[in-house]
């Protein structure tokens, strides 16, 4: 590339008025005000954001927004709001790098940028009329919260509904207050487990995937939504397949480095998929082969 980098550009005719369009509006963050910050765990918060003007655009559970900390950078964050909430958006964010550090350091009144929503949502409509099994690991429950809230609101539309949730420790459980509220319902199974716990924990200890065999659902009428670390998703899919749920009815939310959100930057490719565009939600039939290969 050095051959042209150093060569001089001869001046030609002056610039003339040609077509000059703005960049795709989906690439430009919209300023939002922080309404509320709720602490979930030591490193995780849930924030509510409202556009400075107007309402947020509609979204479907499982879709992703890009959150921008002014001058610092941007990361993809799943929309965790109740889908019927039209005034603001909620996001659950874990602090892992410089951008999420900035995003988790906000206070009410601060401003963040939002663009989206991007991607394919959970096929909640397809799940109606049958049993619904939600399997979540760690912060992986955040992309499923909107779906759980939607299913509980229309509980009559589903058969058995089960939420299986695992975290590393009791202190890593997010949405704890909500989990307890959901668990009080008599029409929904909420099964929670942690990988390890001290003496103050009297719940399940063990991997969330081990909850699958004992969960009540009819495999041939079941739709499963799975989100968590990749090994957990592989084992959850395997456990569901062993129970007889078809690969076409097991959906996972896969994660790669989403940067543009519109399927052109190439970062979030997994096999043939641009996950921001064809995903993040894909069936195990579509994505299972690729999730089984290391470093793909």
């Amino acid at each position: 590339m050095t051959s042209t980098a150093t060569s001089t550009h001869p001046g030609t005719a002056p610039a003339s008025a040609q077509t000059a369009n703005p960049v795709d509006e989906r690439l430009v963050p919209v300023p939002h005000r922080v309404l509320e910050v709720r602490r979930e765990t030591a490193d995780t918060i849930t924030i509510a954001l409202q556009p400075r003007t107007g309402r947020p655009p509609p979204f479907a559970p499982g879709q992703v927004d890009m959150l921008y900390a002014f001058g610092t950078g941007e990361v993809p964050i799943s929309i965790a709001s109740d889908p019927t909430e039209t005034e603001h958006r909620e996001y659950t964010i874990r602090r892992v790098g410089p951008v999420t550090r900035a995003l988790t350091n906000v206070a009410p009144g601060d401003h963040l940028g939002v663009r989206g929503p991007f991607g394919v949502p959970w096929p909640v409509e397809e799940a109606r009329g049958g049993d619904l099994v939600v399997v979540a690991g760690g912060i992986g429950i955040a992309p499923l919260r909107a779906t759980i809230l939607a299913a509980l609101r229309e509980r009559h539309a589903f058969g058995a509904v089960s939420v299986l949730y695992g975290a590393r420790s009791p202190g890593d459980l997010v949405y704890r207050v909500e989990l307890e509220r959901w668990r009080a319902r008599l029409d929904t199974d909420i099964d929670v487990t942690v990988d390890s716990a001290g003496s103050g924990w009297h719940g399940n200890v063990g991997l969330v995937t081990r909850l699958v065999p004992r969960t009540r659902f009819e495999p041939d009428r079941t739709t499963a939504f799975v989100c968590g670390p990749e090994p957990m998703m592989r084992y959850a899919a395997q456990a569901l397949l062993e129970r007889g749920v078809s690969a076409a009815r097991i959906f996972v939310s896969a994660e790669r480095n989403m940067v543009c959100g519109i399927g052109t930057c190439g970062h979030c490719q997994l096999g043939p998929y641009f996950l921001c565009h064809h995903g993040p939600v894909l069936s195990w039939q579509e994505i299972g082969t690729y999730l089984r290969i290391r470093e793909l």
Partner: protein
Amino acid sequence: MLDVETTHVLEVEGLERLVEALVARDYDVVAPRVADGAIALDLITHADQLPIGRGDEQAPGRYRLTDRDDEARFGYAVGPTSPKRWLLPPRSQIFQATAEGDAFRPEAATTPDRRHAFLGLRPCELAGVAKQDRVFIRDDLRDALYADRRDQALLIVVHCGDPAGTCFCASLGTGPRAEAGFDLALTEVLGEHHRFVVEVGSDAGAELVAELDLPPATEADLSAARAVTDRAADSMGRSLDTEGLREDLLGALESPRYRDVARRCLACGSCTLLCPTCFCTGMVDSSELDGSGAARTRVWDSCFTIGFSYIHGQSIRSSVAARYRQWLTHKLATWADQFGELGCVGCGRCITWCPVGIDITEEARAIRATAVPQAVPQEDRP
């Protein structure tokens, strides 16, 4: 199409009038030039800036300028730059934002207003442009940063007469003769009567031909032109068997050959920057030191960098083997799933300019050969 109805003849001296006509139409003219020991696309204002009587010699990891024994203007294969540098510039601003108290006000960037006429694009480069068109101009998307430049570009192709040792466009069906997608297509006919046979591919091309008042071509001109590219097709330095290639590569994702190539690959990303189809970009956020403003810039990125696949604290493709696999299988397999065709045009740049001479055609062959059918990946414990 090479037929007497739409084909004309441009004398070699007429090239200057063609360049003048482009400049008069307010184009920046991008054409091959000798610079820093290579023939690369750059801006020109006169036809005598073309590499007259120069040629090249290309092999894996090797590029040399040569002197020809004729006055050919286009007697060489592709150099390190491709039209991508102008249509998808290495850096484009996306937005800038100004701080306003606790808030900020973003402002979308607009596309620049310069337009480019490319003179001397090779058919493989034209095919590269068509592949990038499919990425940035789709049913659900018109990426203005690319599409505005693309819409205003004028494409003058010169069919290939002298392919390099690293060329394999004939295997991909992208050369040495372009069939469509150009405004004008020239065949350089050398010999006693040094001339160009000119095919018209668009209204803009027809206007240029009319303005230059080019005489129609004869049957003799056409057969001379055909002979040039027929010879070129027979002298490709390399080949790539595309039959069943996608299926074979996807069936060999865990081929041990990736570990082998990773021992040679430097993960420098040179191949991706030179590639006329590689389209991956990253976003770079910057801010003023005093916090008063910030901006985002889209820059070329490469799947060979460790940061490319970074998510929350780790890189998915931490090994070079995984990064080479991503590049090769995207180019020669999954591109077909995404865009209905392979992502390679057979220009050979990635072979010539690889510092260690890794040859995509050879690696693809070897990976197919070592495919482990139905390989079952090892799974780690959750």
